[in-house]
């Protein structure tokens, strides 16, 4: 069995697991990082979003093999950062989280967007979060939350 090495939330790790496993399952079942959710399981809802080398990726269609040598950040890793606090506060202020199942994915997609584009327009936010579905349909509040985060966190991204 190949040993697959990557950096997970700041720590170097090595796993000897089937390389075709979905990164989603490895994170949840092996590392017990259950903040990453499974929604559709086919890349359409974004509940499983994580960052790979800083860019949002659907972990439900990402094979463990491709994680080799990469830096992976989950919502648990992001939670330790100042940026997360800002995003959390902004989602709170704008009512961006209702039932909560999409929230970790939304936050990861927002982090990916803001790290590449710290001052996104409404349209750019909509594109940045276009792969994330909210079944409570609270999209407008989520878009506003990302806008608010960009303002509150000026200089952080």
């Amino acid at each position, binding site marked *: 069995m*190949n040993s*697959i090495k990557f950096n997970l939330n700041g720590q170097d790790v090595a796993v000897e697991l*089937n*390389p*075709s*496993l*979905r990164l989603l*399952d490895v994170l*949840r*079942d092996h590392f017990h990082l259950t903040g990453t959710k*499974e929604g559709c*399981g*086919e*890349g*359409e809802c*974004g509940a499983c*979003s994580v960052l*790979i080398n800083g*860019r*949002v*990726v*659907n972990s*439900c*269609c*990402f*094979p463990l*093999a*491709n994680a*080799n*040598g990469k830096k992976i950040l989950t919502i648990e890793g992001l939670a330790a950062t100042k940026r997360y606090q800002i995003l959390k506060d902004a989602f709170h202020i704008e009512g961006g989280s209702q039932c909560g199942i999409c929230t970790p994915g939304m936050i990861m*997609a927002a982090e*990916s*967007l803001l790290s590449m584009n710290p001052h996104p327009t409404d349209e750019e936010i909509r*594109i*940045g979060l*276009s*792969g*994330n579905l909210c079944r409570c349909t609270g999209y407008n509040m989520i878009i506003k939350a990302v806008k608010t985060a960009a303002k509150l966190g000026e200089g952080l991204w």
Partner: protein
Amino acid sequence: MVRHIIPNNLNEALNFLNEGPFHIMAGGTDLMIQKRSTAGTPPKFAKDVLYIANLAELNYIKKDEAHRCIRIGAAAKLEDIYNHVDTPALLKDIIREIGSPGIRHSATLGGNIANASPAGDSLVALYLFDAEIVLLSVDGERIVPIKKFITGVRRIDLRSNELIKEIVIPIIPITAYKWYKVGGRRADSISKVSFAGVYLSNFGLVADIRFAFGSVSATVARSIELENSLKNRPIEQIIGDLPRILEEADKMISPIDDQRSNKIYRRKVAGNIMERFIKNIA
């Protein structure tokens, strides 16, 4: 028990392939879902799997001035192709509507070609530009035009010891281009109908014109004959020829009923798009 091979470099990958057959996995955004099993268990592969996403030798996008083309490595990510300064604007517009950021950060152009879906959006542009697919094996390179490489629904002319090395997109002079994607949602949607058209006009004459439909035939539909019948003619004359063009364009396609749409709708919309494209030539 299938083997899972993560090669360290391209040579190693080719040597493994030579003892094939393998499923070749790039970004995984199609293959992981096609083969998926229940949560927590590995996908079900009937063949060994070779992982090429992290091969640096296949991850590049470069302009080849001498041959007037763009060369895109098979493992280049859609997002990187979108962001590259030399990517044709038409292809950028198409990529912007494929999947979502989370998909485009791992999906590859090589994978979209190998998947050979009738609804593969990038393929429409590749057919228009007469792109070539460079295949590589331990025996060397083989170059196949895209329309020959894709032989049917999910069928490609790839030998078991070959992999896609790069996609060669010729740079052609164009005055304007148009891309239409009809889908159920702006992101993550599989096209019901798609269309790409380009033309080159000079002093009111159309010197070059190309157009193709996606999702309405087994493979991308393009008619060189119809295109040739419009070349080197004044724009007003082409617009005046609209009834014949629409009749001929209708013969190019053979849409089907499926879960996403139906053939009546697809045929009607394809015609409407064609009409709008022709009427807007300037």
